């Protein structure tokens, strides 16, 4: 295979914070948005601000992903801003592995193991969805032309093997 139509990269420099709180609690939303300098994303979308990405997980749940270095400060700032509120802020960095996937055939590859509609009209930049990929639970998001795949650490080895095999016909390259 002369040219890789898909590239995959494990992003080691990531911290994951799980945030839960009530969407209709104006004080909670304002506190989080002032810390993050972006609005909390609506259903099935991502918000981005600098190194930080906020993924919608559910009606009262978000995943905040930033660099490993900035995670502790973000955690402290969120805890400070939401002190006394009905919230849960937890550092889950050790629980997840993050992958970046790019290339012209990446939607075709993902569609082999995923039941959601990945056509560009249905899954565009800014979209995020928690779904199944080859039976593993994954958070799938797209920013511009790069897919992010966030998977539980215990499934990462399996999923990398699946990507390796299923991506072989596209010359998938792990960089």
């Amino acid at each position: 295979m002369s040219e890789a139509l898909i590239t995959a990269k494990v992003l080691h420099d990531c911290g994951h914070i799980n945030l839960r709180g009530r969407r209709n609690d104006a004080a909670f939303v304002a506190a989080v948005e002032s810390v993050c300098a972006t609005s909390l994303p609506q259903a099935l979308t991502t918000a981005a601000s600098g190194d930080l990405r906020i993924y919608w997980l559910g009606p009262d749940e978000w995943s905040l992903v930033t660099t490993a270095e900035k995670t502790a400060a973000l955690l402290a700032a969120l805890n400070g801003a939401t002190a006394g509120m009905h919230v849960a802020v937890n550092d889950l960095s050790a629980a997840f592995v993050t992958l970046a996937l790019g290339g012209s055939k990446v939607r075709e590859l993902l569609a082999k193991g995923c039941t959601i509609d990945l056509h560009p009209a249905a899954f565009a930049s800014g979209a995020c969805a928690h779904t199944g990929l080859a039976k593993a639970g994954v958070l799938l998001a797209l920013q511009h032309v790069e897919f992010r795949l966030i998977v539980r650490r215990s499934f990462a080895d399996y999923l990398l093997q699946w990507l390796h095999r299923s991506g072989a016909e596209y010359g998938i390259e792990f960089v």
Partner: protein
Amino acid sequence: MLLIKCPHCGERAETEFSYGGEAGIQRPANPDALNDAEWADYLFNRKNPRGMHAELWNHAQGCRRWFRVERDTVSYLISDSREL
């Protein structure tokens, strides 16, 4: 495969969900006051209708929320899906 509409995520494949049985089962407020037959009725007896059925589903691989679905057990037609 069924397409089930999660009230938060929209239509997703059946494989993303887990089934939670009949909806609307209320835990008795005062279990000590029940006799064995009444307690067994709460624990085990379900309507199991042929036709429309109100049931619980959990979007296990998605938003992980429980919600309520109205499904026809004959045609599998899902006519309603809403938050609890």
